[in-house]
């Protein structure tokens, strides 16, 4: 597809000039940028940027039980929220609807946290973005119930998905968001999933994600929060995909006194390859960034966790701490947990812990000596291993769902 064709499709889709401007620049950047390199993980030959097409495909009928906000492929198929939210100015809407209704807000916030110029993947994403939504929580608004996003990649059809979620948490607002990714069908497609969170001063965002995309996709995800003064963002991501996945979770602590807790669980199986960067950057003074990752690697799969804690010069009195732990469940599995600390300031506290290894034989012996069969004992030890991160996931339903997927993967089903 050339630039002219892309422009025609954008125009036929009634996209405002400001969005076309972003697409056009991103399109031109694709050829000039490279795939980001990831420590100890190679994915350069994955087909992440090959399906260069922009089209609007109607969804096929399905028997999905939609939750609050459900996007099947590119289409919103359900959109039900408490009326009270609407009345108080909470906006949850389709990305293109938002560009149509409120281009001023979109121009102000869109593509500001993750820039098109960062890499070939980001350029590709913005050029071909074909699905998404925005969430806007007005200042001082406290959403008591979690906001559930149900995003489904429709692999019954041929075509990649470039999905963009933009969250704008107004000053002193608070909200809990759950992004659930799944897929239908078996066609070979890519998924390029991006989440931008803008946490205005004093806001509090809990963002949980549960990824369970099927084996026929190739996934790249990029979830990043820009965290302003005294704001707090907590990531809790469960990477349970069955397919090859490369992803970044990012917290940019730009405001003084801001905080991020970046929790990640990854479970891999079969011949899957997964590489994750979990990054927290302390820029503001007295900022706090904690990374906590746990991985379980089964069968012949590969899982690489890089924890990247960076304290920028000037971030006085900041703290960065990280734990990266990986359990290797089979002799053919490959895993790594790499703490990377980049400290450019003196009066800070930084720490890290990492481990890669099999299930603790002492724990296994103890449980089995009470008559508990090996498989069940393994599950108990793994549950305990994941516990410190699982406990940080706000929704009990999500926790249980993750445990169920985990147990399925352990049984090699």
């Amino acid at each position: 597809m050339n630039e002219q064709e892309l422009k025609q499709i954008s125009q036929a889709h009634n996209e405002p000039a400001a969005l076309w401007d972003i697409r056009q620049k991103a399109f031109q950047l694709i050829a000039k940028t490279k795939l980001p390199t990831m420590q100890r993980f190679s994915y350069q030959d994955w087909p992440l940027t090959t399906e260069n097409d922009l089209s609007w495909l109607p969804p096929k009928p399905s028997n999905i039980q939609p939750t609050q906000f459900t996007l099947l492929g590119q289409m919103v198929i359900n959109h039900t929220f408490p009326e009270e939210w609407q009345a108080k100015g909470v906006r949850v809407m389709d990305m293109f609807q938002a560009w149509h209704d409120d281009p001023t807000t979109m121009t102000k916030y869109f593509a500001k946290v993750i820039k098109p110029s960062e890499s070939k993947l980001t350029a590709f994403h913005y050029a071909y973005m074909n699905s998404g939504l925005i969430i806007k929580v007005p200042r001082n608004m406290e959403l008591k119930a979690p906001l559930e996003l149900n995003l489904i990649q429709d692999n019954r059809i041929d075509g990649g998905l470039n999905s963009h979620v933009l969250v704008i948490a107004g000053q002193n607002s608070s909200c809990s968001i759950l992004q659930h990714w799944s897929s239908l069908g078996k066609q070979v497609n890519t998924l390029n999933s991006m989440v931008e969170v803008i946490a205005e001063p004093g806001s509090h965002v809990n963002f949980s994600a549960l990824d369970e995309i099927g084996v026929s996709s190739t996934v790249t995800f990029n979830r990043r929060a820009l965290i302003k003064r005294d704001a707090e963002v907590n990531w809790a991501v469960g990477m349970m995909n069955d397919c090859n996945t490369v992803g970044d979770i990012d917290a940019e602590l730009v405001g003084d006194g801001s905080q991020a807790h970046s929790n990640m669980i990854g479970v891999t199986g079969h011949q899957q390859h997964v590489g994750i960067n979990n990054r927290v950057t302390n820029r503001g003074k007295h900022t706090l960034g904690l990374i906590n990752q746990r991985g379980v690697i089964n069968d012949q799969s590969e899982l690489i966790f890089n924890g990247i804690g960076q304290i920028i010069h000037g971030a006085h009195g900041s703290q960065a701490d990280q734990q990266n732990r990986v359990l290797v469940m089979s002799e053919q599995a490959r895993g790594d947990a790499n703490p990377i600390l980049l400290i450019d300031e003196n009066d800070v506290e930084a720490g890290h812990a990492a481990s890669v290894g099999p299930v603790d034989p002492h724990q296994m012996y103890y449980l089995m000596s009470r008559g508990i069969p090996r498989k069940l004992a393994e599950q108990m030890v793994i549950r305990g291993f994941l516990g410190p991160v699982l406990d940080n996931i706000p929704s009990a339903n999500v926790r249980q769902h993750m445990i169920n997927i985990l147990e399925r993967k352990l049984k090699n089903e």
Partner: protein
Amino acid sequence: MAKLEVRDLHVSVKDEESKSTKEILKGVNLTMQTGEIHAIMGPNGTGKSTLSETIMGKSGYHVTQGDILLDGQSILDMPVDERARRGLFLAMQYPAEVPGVTNAEFLRVAINARRDQDHQISVMDFLQKLDRNLSLLDMKESMTERYLNEGFSGGEKKRNEILQLLMIEPKIAILDEIDSGLDIDALKVVSKGVNSMRGKDFGALIITHYQRLLNYIVPDTVHVMMDGRIVKNGGPELAKKLEAEGYTGLRDELGLDIPLVDDDQ
């Protein structure tokens, strides 16, 4: 009724650092059955814990000769969990900590591992049994909601081992230095727990350095172990004699040429 027989047992362990193999047990013979309490006493480094870990089936203990039979059947080829389900229990000297698994959940899973799908213990029965045993052992109910052994003091871990014994109700229990690190009050409580199990369906093998524990749990038979063998058998009076004369006295009386670990210190 259950019967445990250890026949001419030789066990070697490999030293991971020096890569050399060392024979620890050099022909142990021991027979016990339900309804009986046996004690094994012996100086440090004499193979008492090796015997208990080998009976339970811990990896790294290589049986080079002899056999271990439970009810006439060799258990050497059975995995640890199967030995446990057949009625063996080992109260460990150093219980593992398992974060994320509550004590109560662990106990319920362990009990149900012995039952088939249609006869799992009901929540009501489980809680009643748990309450009864907690009060017997003077343990707080909050202990059951804590993660298994995580952050437990030495004394709490020992009590928790006995709680498991009472909940699981094995046929034959080996108590490996259950008295170490316990103050006198805790020792009494632990002994009370073990004594409550005494009866025709329960047997215990108590491993200890000191006679003191045997004042509270009076054994039927006392075995003295030195240098990988049982060198003397007797009744409870043997333990008292040892307390008075020490292991060196017995060694010299038997005319054994065995260096005791503490000799060269």
